[in-house]
């Protein structure tokens, strides 16, 4: 099959279903030393889909997946899609409070999870009035993980490409995570646009050390299996030497990364590993420092390097063609195929090339909105201008040069990225203020060699309260994903406020 002729659809799982019939003996997924063929994976998908269907899960139902990167997660995704239901992926770092919020917000009818995360999900379920049915890998009181089976019970699938396929929860300015709605048409439009420049091939071996529960990793699962490639699922990002050994041993051809991961790999001797199979390396989630881009070009010269930019709300919005990376390494490109984009000033006026303003993106790949969003509330997402398309105000400020090449210069709000992950100060402040001894808290970022930006908290305690830095950090680790917990905490007598009493984060030092 020619990669150039490849057009996935009509639903996100359609291509994978076709591959299972065409190349059943080919290796679909490798985890540690275990190879799983398309046939075996298909049987695992059958097992999960049959079990969920028998329990009454069907089109439109939301199913939360709280799982490590692995075969069961990949099978779970495709099983839910085959049933016409909606995947709600959450990473294993998710704590009880956020899981409870997502379960309630989505009205999820099922939870697919694992024994080692029981601390989080048992507590969340206790807090969920209409608790979902639970299937868990490993030894738990929940229903056991379904067995693989060769037969698929007959069931309805998605009816229309406009049917919801996924809800991906992302932090926002209000401090409460919101579900980005993605229907089959959105995801396929993003897939086609990205495949048009990424050129994934059936003979690719994709090394995925990224979380497959976030957009960047999720699409590698979808696109890799859809084209019949092999996915190597790695949990070795914490052990970069081991990761390099695995990339070499599995002859990985495609390897996506984020700046923190690239930094940890660049600290090692890449030439000590045979990475000659690597033909495509990518960066997204945060800007790669130009010095690191230069090192990757020098030390992995035979690999095409693509610097990319996107958001969950549209999957991807721009990529820098490889031939430009040496001349303009700090640019993220000039958009992606089938998309319109422009810069806007604060009053919403479109700006010409050579300006600085908020990037606005429009196309069929853009989400229609956030799940359960209150009507009439201003949103980044809005319909149109053409049917089937939506418009996204990214909140990212870019400068464009005379030719339209885009360079990121900052945010319109307080969000920053630490370790390539989003941190909304308000979400962290809310968590800190849950501690009885805390009167007020303010969170900001400070430069950090390893993390890019580190999270710093300023805390004003109540009269007579005593709390240590460690207690505050521990509370945040229990409450939030690990990258959101402050690295340092400073205790202050007062926080900088505006005349109207609003926090002036920019004045925090």
């Amino acid at each position, binding site marked *: 099959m020619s990669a150039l002729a490849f057009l996935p659809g009509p639903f996100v799982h359609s291509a994978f279903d076709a591959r299972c019939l065409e190349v059943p003996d080919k290796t679909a997924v490798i985890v540690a030393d275990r190879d799983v063929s398309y046939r075996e994976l298909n049987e695992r998908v059958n097992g999960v889909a049959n079990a969920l269907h028998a329990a009454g899960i069907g089109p439109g139902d939301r199913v939360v997946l709280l799982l490590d990167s692995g075969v069961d997660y990949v099978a779970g995704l495709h099983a839910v899609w085959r049933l016409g239901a909606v995947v709600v992926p959450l990473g*294993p770092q998710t704590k009880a409070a956020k899981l409870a919020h997502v379960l309630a917000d989505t009205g999820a009818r099922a939870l697919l999870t694992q024994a080692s995360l029981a601390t989080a999900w048992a507590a969340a379920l206790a807090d969920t009035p209409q608790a979902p049915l639970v299937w868990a890998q490993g030894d738990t009181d929940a229903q056991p993980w379904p067995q693989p089976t060769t037969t698929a019970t007959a069931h309805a699938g998605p009816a229309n490409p406009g049917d919801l396929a996924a809800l991906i929860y992302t932090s926002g300015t209000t401090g409460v995570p919101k579900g980005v709605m993605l229907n089959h048409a959105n995801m396929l439009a993003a897939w086609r646009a990205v495949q048009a420049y990424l050129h994934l091939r059936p003979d690719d071996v994709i090394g995925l050390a990224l979380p497959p529960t976030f957009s960047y990793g999720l699409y590698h699962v979808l696109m890799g299996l859809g084209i019949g490639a092999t996915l190597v699922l790695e949990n070795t990002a914490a052990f970069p030497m081991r990761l390099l050994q695995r990339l070499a041993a599995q002859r990985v051809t495609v390897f996506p990364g984020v700046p923190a991961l690239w930094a940890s790999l660049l600290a090692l001797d890449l030439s000590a590993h045979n990475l000659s199979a690597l033909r495509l390396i990518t960066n997204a989630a945060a800007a790669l420092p130009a010095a690191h881009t230069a090192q990757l070009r020098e030390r992995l010269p035979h690999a095409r390097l693509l610097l990319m930019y996107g958001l969950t709300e549209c999957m991807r919005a721009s990529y820098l063609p490889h031939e430009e990376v040496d001349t303009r390494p700090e640019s993220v490109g000039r958009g992606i195929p089938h998309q319109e984009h422009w810069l806007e000033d604060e009053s919403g006026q479109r700006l010409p090339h050579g300006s600085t303003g908020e990037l606005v993106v429009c196309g069929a790949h853009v989400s229609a909105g956030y799940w359960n969003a209150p009507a009439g509330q201003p949103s980044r997402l809005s319909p149109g201008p053409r049917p089937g398309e939506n418009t996204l105000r990214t909140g990212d400020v870019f400068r464009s040069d005379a030719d339209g090449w885009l360079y990121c210069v900052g945010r319109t709000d307080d969000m920053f990225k630490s370790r390539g992950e989003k941190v909304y100060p308000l979400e962290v402040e809310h968590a800190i203020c849950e501690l009885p001894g805390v009167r007020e808290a303010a969170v900001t970022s400070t430069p950090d060699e*390893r993390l890019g930006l580190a999270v710093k908290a300023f805390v004003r305690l109540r009269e007579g309260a005593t709390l240590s830095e460690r207690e505050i950090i521990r509370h945040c680790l229990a*409450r939030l994903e690990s990258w959101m917990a402050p690295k340092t905490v400073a205790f202050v007598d007062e926080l900088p406020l505006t005349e109207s009493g609003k926090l002036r984060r920019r004045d925090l030092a």
Partner: protein
Amino acid sequence: MSTIKADVRRYIEENFLLGAGAVSPGDDDSFLEHQVLDSTGFLELVAHLEETYGFKIGDDEMVPENLDSLNAIEAFVQRKQQGVA
């Protein structure tokens, strides 16, 4: 329990284990699988071991076999102390 394991267990409990119901890992439990440590956590653990035991840990020694459980760390530290790691 040896002092190495007791020390590392205390370090992990104080710095990473948290919230109601958090269970301290068994001696042989994988930190990765049990979400005890992530990539930044392992780097901090390595820094703690270097400071506490006075040796340097090389990039090629940062592998799960040496660091991913209390038993693994104890064996690794003992090998380093005996100069055979």
